[in-house]
């Protein structure tokens, strides 16, 4: 017969008490894990929203800053082509370069080393603006000549650098007088607007000149006021005249892709907003 020394059992009461305590502790742990998991998911959504509106503000700031308004010999030209509270059509700058050869009839060549841009110019999609110097001793009578690009190729520059970007452009009487070193800007007409897709609102952009479909840039944004654009004159007053615009106030209201629930509140999308005032650097001073 085995001895019972060292073998102690539990009474029914002890087991019931310990089970009750274990259930309470397990319940508390589960509640804690559940809340932590929910908070974690909410944080991910919040980070996504903040990241989305921040990226959108950076991109739009980059786009708007180089725009010109109130320019040209008459002072009535503007890169802002159509102004709306949640949509804008404008001539976006896509590159900058310098002529490496004298301009010919309907043909210019940009030095590869001097060219800066996200991509090379594309025929049909882009246009080029060339700096036309007036009185060499005056900084006030110079102008930019805008021409369409009908062809893009490669051509050697005289100084032996790698082949330049050869552009076939529309005819102009002043073109042939332009010397090497003349600055050239590459532009593309784009539309920026709030649009709906898959039951959500997005900040979208499309190339008008290339007749592209709209593509999402950031989002989702709030339906009613996800993107607000306010156009301000030099005096800081709202204006609807493109040539008078000197700055753009941008307001983005982002919301998360999924609803989040924190505490006892009913689930709703996480939201965040960002506003920025962007001065057009090439507007008339």
């Amino acid at each position, binding site marked *: 017969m*085995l*001895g019972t*020394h*060292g*073998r102690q059992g539990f009474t029914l009461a002890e087991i019931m008490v310990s089970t009750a305590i274990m259930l309470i502790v397990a319940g508390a*742990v589960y509640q804690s*894990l559940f809340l*932590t*998991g929910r*908070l*974690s998911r909410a*944080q*991910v959504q919040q*980070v996504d929203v*903040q*990241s989305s509106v*921040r990226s959108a503000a*950076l991109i739009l700031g*980059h786009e708007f*800053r*180089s725009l*010109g308004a109130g*320019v*040209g010999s008459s002072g009535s030209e503007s890169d802002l082509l159509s102004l709306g509270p949640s949509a804008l059509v404008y001539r976006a*700058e896509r590159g*900058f370069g*310098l002529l490496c050869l004298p301009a010919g009839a309907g043909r210019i060549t940009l030095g590869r080393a001097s060219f*800066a*841009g*996200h991509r090379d110019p594309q025929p049909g999609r882009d246009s080029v*603006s060339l*700096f036309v*110097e007036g009185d*060499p*001793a*005056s*900084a*006030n*009578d*110079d*102008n*930019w000549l805008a021409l369409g690009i009908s062809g893009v190729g490669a051509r050697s520059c005289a*100084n032996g650098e790698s082949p330049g970007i050869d552009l076939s452009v529309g005819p102009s009487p002043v073109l042939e007088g332009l*010397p*090497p*070193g*003349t*600055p050239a*800007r590459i532009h593309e007409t784009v539309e920026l607007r709030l649009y709906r897709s898959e039951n959500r609102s997005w900040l979208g952009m499309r190339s008008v000149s290339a007749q592209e479909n709209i593509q999402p840039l950031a989002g989702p944004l709030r339906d009613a006021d996800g993107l607000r654009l306010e156009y301000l004159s030099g005096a800081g007053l709202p204006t609807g005249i493109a040539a008078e615009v000197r700055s753009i106030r941008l307001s983005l209201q982002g919301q998360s892709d999924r609803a989040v629930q924190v505490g006892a509140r009913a689930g709703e999308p996480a939201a965040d907003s960002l506003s920025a005032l962007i001065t057009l*650097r*090439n507007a008339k001073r």
Partner: protein
Amino acid sequence: MPNAEPCRSGERGVALGAAVFALAVMGGLVAGNFMTGWLEHQSGRNTLFAVQAAEAAEAELWEAAAAAPRGALAALVPGGAGHQLEAVSFNGVMVQREIFRLTERLFLIRVRASRTDAGGTPLAIRSLGLLVKFAADSASAVALVPVAQRPWVQLY
């Protein structure tokens, strides 16, 4: 024969396993939350660095137009090498400034601002340009002034 203690080598409790499992779950949750916060922190920092580089480039662009030595600019050859101004460094941002002669009177000021870490590795870079001309000002002295139409250039 003495009574032997019952052998307990085959008996194992679940307390240690349960504790390790609970710690692993809690550690995972904490790490997940930390990761989310860290990503947000990095994203915010990157934006800050980009803005710092952009602001430094913008400020130095206009400052370079005023600081450019007239004599050195007059000696530049159109289409040739540029004249480098002294680099400026502050708050982790290094700004390099160079002036090129494009035509007889037209110049391009190019500024490249890099926000670097303590080891000098670039974190954000911004390049801007300004088209300027030698022009006679009201006092009939020659001054370097931005062209009136679209002087500001984004150099990516």
